[in-house]
């Protein structure tokens, strides 16, 4: 129970912090709206009929991934710059339990994107928010968010080991959008991308959310998303413990 409370309170604290940043809020809402608009015009321009709801949901998911990538990827560095990393690491709980709420919070604030793109699509383009599986959608979005938060922990713990993590983060936005099939089906990509896509939790998460919106199997992909994310959580926890021990031994915790 204490563990659940720690994660819940920690996540809520970080969501509130992130939600007070005009930059975070605006980039979580405005940029996905631009992408949703672009997607709607592209889907409308297509000679084949396209599900515009898929464009709105896809653009929202793209926003969630951007939030997790840049938020979680830079989580430890961010605490380091703010001078709070030492305090966090002094907490009498495992590092993973202290950092995980932050990475989940970045995914939660990413949901602003989904809400914004759905509302934008409904109000501006008259997209009917008729979900193929409403119950599945209500279940898929939070599970997808939680899963991406766990994936974010792996990003946070591995990125901190790399001096050029920012460069990697900057290059990972579009490939993951593409490989995960957030806007276009993976079948449109070359065959060799299949195995890469299959190991990404974002692929299964976006498949589940899109299926709930426009039709298709929801629960299988959702379970797969959760399973891969749990593996990411375990790997992230191991990496974080290793990084913490190494930083304490070398007295470099506060050093970039």
């Amino acid at each position, binding site marked *: 129970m204490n563990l659940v409370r720690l994660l819940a309170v920690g996540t809520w604290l970080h969501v509130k912090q992130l939600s007070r940043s005009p930059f975070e809020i605006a980039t979580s809402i405005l940029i996905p709206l631009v*992408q949703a608009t672009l997607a709607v015009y592209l889907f409308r321009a297509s000679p084949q009929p396209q599900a515009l709801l898929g464009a709105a949901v896809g653009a929202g998911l793209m926003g969630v991934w951007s939030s997790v990538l840049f938020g979680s990827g830079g989580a430890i560095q961010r605490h380091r710059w703010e001078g709070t990393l030492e305090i966090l690491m002094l907490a009498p709980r495992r590092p993973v339990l202290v950092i995980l709420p932050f990475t989940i919070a970045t995914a939660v604030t990413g949901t602003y994107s989904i809400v914004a793109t759905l509302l934008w699509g409904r109000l501006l383009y008259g997209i009917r928010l008729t979900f193929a599986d409403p119950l599945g959608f209500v279940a898929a979005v939070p599970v997808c968010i939680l899963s991406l938060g766990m994936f974010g922990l792996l990003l946070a713990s591995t990125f901190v080991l790399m001096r050029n993590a920012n*460069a990697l983060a900057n*290059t990972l936005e579009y490939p993951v959008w593409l490989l995960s099939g957030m806007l276009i089906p993976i079948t449109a990509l070359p065959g060799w991308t299949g195995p890469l896509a299959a190991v990404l939790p974002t692929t299964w998460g976006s498949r589940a959310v899109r299926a709930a919106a426009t039709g298709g199997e929801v629960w299988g992909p959702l379970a797969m998303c959760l399973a891969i994310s749990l593996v990411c959580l375990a790997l992230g926890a191991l990496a974080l413990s290793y990084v913490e021990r190494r930083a304490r031994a070398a007295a470099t915790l506060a050093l970039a």
Partner: protein
Amino acid sequence: MLRLIGVGGVIAYRALFNWTTPAMFIGTLLVGPVFQLVFFAFLGRQLAVGSDHFYIVGNAVLASSGACVFGGVMAVSNERRFGTLGPVLLSPRSRTAVFLGRALPYAANGLLIATTTLLGGVLVMGVPVPASALPSLLLAFAIGSVSCAFFGLALGAIGLRFRDVWLVSNVAVALMLLLTGVNVPAAALPDWVRTVGSFVPITHAAEAARRLVAGGPLGDSVAPLAAELVVGVAYAVLAGALLRIFEAESRRRASLDTL
């Protein structure tokens, strides 16, 4: 004056990028735009909207926008952030010339990025571009990059007055994806988007580049290239004016180094 603009710009560019590494440069500025191109090219293929050439050429021209816009913004606002704005403004030389010179290295950077993005797009998508069009394409890339760098400088000037310049620049770069018509054929965009887009850098350069790749002579692309140049000059004038206004304002309000 030319030395002030040229040498000053290069020194400032080196100072701002001294902290970075080749990996950061390659990853962010060279590899990232290729992924963006590939994403939109596959999206266009799947939706049967526009040819591969449409996306490769358009996104190659647009590739310079990130470096040029953020570079232009950094050229001004990072002086404030790093606490060096005061000494720059104490200079007895024209600050307008100093800051306009800052945009030029970023424009050169943009030209390099557009060229490597074109090369990457051609290799990944397996769609060749006529070799005869390359010299004229470089001209279109160069004009687009200069225009974009001055646009970035105008946004950067806002950073002398407002704190959230990074928010403005991030949204501006995202909006360029839509307004420039690089990823959606102009016919599929509403009139107001096309009208606004005609005042945004890259729009005309992308149109010119597409005409060149389609096999048209350089003469056919003179009009859009001239329009792109006019847009760039307009942003240079706007940047110069905003820099003067906000400099005077920040001196008057003693808010020069306030973050």
